[in-house]
C-alpha cells in the first residue's frame, strides 16, 4: 500500500507531477476557455444587470480560489510543522503569489462590477474589507519568505505566521461584519439553498470554477517544481564552490 507521504520525496513529486501536469494544464485551458466562452456568449443577459452580470464568471471563481489558496497554504504549513517535508513548505511558498493574484483579480473585477451596479468602485463592506485584509496577509507572508535567507528558518517562521494569520484572518472576517453593514450579497452558490443563481448562469459558472481550480493546481505544481529545482541548483553551485 503506497502512502501519500511517498510524494513528499522531491524526486517522486517531480516525476509524478510531470506525468499529470500536461493533462491538468490542458483540462484547465479547456475548462476556462469553454466556461468563459459559454458564459460570455451563450447565456442570456440578466434582466436587471444587463451584460455586466457576466463578470461573475471571473469574479466568483477568483474569490473562491483566493480563500482556498490560503487554506491550502495552511494545510501545507501544518504538514511542514508536523512532518517536515520540504516539498510541503515549498508548495505553500509556491501557492502564496497565486493566491495573492486571485485576491487581486477578485477585488478588481468586483470594483469593475460594483461601479455600474452599486454606483461605486469601492465600499467598506465586510466582504470587500476582509478581502483587502486577506491580501495584506498574503503580502506579509510573501515578504517574510523573501526576507529570510536560510530556507528552513524561513519555512518554519512562515508556517507559524500562516497558522496565526489564519486565526486572525477569520477573526477579522467576523469583526468587520460587526463593524459595518454590507452592500455585497450573501452566498448564492450553496448546495442546498433556494436563492442560488439561475441554472443558465449556474452551469457555465461551475465550469469556470473547475477551470480556476485546475489552473491553480497546475500552477502550484509548476511553481513547486521550480522551487525544488532552484534549491537543487543552489545546492549544486554551493558544492562546486567548495570542491
Amino acid at each position, binding site marked *: 500500500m503506497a502512502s501519500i507521504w511517498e510524494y513528499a520525496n522531491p524526486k517522486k513529486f517531480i516525476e509524478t507531477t510531470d506525468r499529470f501536469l500536461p493533462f491538468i494544464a490542458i483540462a484547465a485551458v479547456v475548462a476556462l476557455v469553454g466556461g468563459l466562452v459559454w458564459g460570455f456568449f451563450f447565456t442570456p443577459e440578466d434582466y436587471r444587470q444587463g451584460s455586466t452580470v457576466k463578470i461573475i464568471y471571473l469574479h466568483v471563481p477568483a474569490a473562491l480560489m483566493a480563500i482556498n489558496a490560503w487554506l491550502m497554504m495552511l494545510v501545507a504549513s501544518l504538514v511542514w510543522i508536523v512532518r517536515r517535508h520540504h516539498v510541503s513548505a515549498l508548495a505553500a511558498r509556491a501557492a502564496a503569489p497565486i493566491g495573492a493574484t486571485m485576491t487581486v483579480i477578485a477585488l478588481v473585477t468586483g470594483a469593475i462590477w460594483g461601479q455600474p451596479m452599486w454606483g461605486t468602485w469601492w465600499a467598506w463592506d465586510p466582504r470587500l474589507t476582509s478581502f483587502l*485584509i486577506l491580501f*495584506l*496577509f498574503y*503580502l*506579509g507572508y510573501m*515578504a*517574510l519568505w523573501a*526576507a*529570510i535567507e536560510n530556507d528552513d*528558518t524561513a519555512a*518554519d*517562521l512562515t508556517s*507559524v*505566521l500562516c*497558522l*496565526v*494569520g489564519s486565526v*486572525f*484572518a477569520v*477573526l*477579522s472576517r467576523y*469583526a*468587520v461584519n*460587526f*463593524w459595518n453593514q454590507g452592500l455585497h450579497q450573501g452566498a448564492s452558490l450553496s448546495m442546498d439553498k433556494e436563492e442560488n443563481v439561475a441554472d443558465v448562469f449556474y452551469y457555465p459558472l461551475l465550469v469556470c470554477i473547475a477551470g480556476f481550480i485546475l489552473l491553480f493546481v497546475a500552477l502550484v505544481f509548476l511553481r513547486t517544481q521550480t522551487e525544488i529545482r532552484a534549491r537543487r541548483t543552489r545546492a549544486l553551485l554551493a558544492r562546486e564552490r567548495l570542491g
Partner: protein
Amino acid sequence: MIALLTRDMRLAVRAGGGFGLGLAFFLIVVVLVPFGVGPENALLARIAPGILWLGALLACLLSLDRIFALDWEDGSLDLLATSPVPMEALVSMKALAHWLTTGLPLVLATPVLGLLLSLPVQGYGPLVLSLALGTPALSVIGTFGAALTVGIKRGGLLLSLLVLPLYVPTLIFGAEVARRGAEGLEYTAPLAMLAGITCGAIALLPFASAAVLRVNLR
C-alpha cells in the same frame, strides 16, 4: 521571571528612547490631526475616538522592534534562552514589560489628549477602558511579530507589514467601544469581544512567539 521583568523595565526607562518616544509620537500624531482635518470642534469630537485608538496603535508599533532587537544584538537573548525559564514565560515577560513601558503610559495619557480633540465627557470612561483592555493584546501580538523578525536586518518595515493586519480585530472592537461610548450608546458587546480577543491573544500567542524565537535562535 520577576528579575527579567524588572531588568527589562529598568533598561527601557534608563536607556532612553524607547520609553518616552512612544508617548511623544502619540502626542505628535494627535497634535497633527487638527492641522490635517481642520480645527472645528464638532468634527474633532466625532473622529477623536478613532484617532486616539489609531495613534495609540501606531505608537505601540513604533517600539515593537526594540523588544528583542537589543538583546539579540548583544547576545543576551541566547543567554536568556538557555536559562531555566521556559521560552513561553520569557516572551510573556517581554510582552508585559513592553505593555508596562508603552501601553500603560499611552492609556494614562489618553484623557489629556482626548481633551485636545474635544472628546465628549461621557467618552472618557469607555475610551480609557477600551485602551486598557486592548493595548495588552497589541503588546502580545507585537511581541509575536518582533519574535518573527528578530533575525532580519532592518526588519522594522517588514514588522509593520506583518503586525498591522493582525491588529485589525483589536482595532475594530476597541475603536467601536470608544466611538459608542463617546456617542453615549451601549458598548458592552464590543467591549466583551475586545476582552475576548485580548484574553485569547495572551493565552495562546506566547506559544507561537516562543516557537518562532526558538527557530530564530537555532
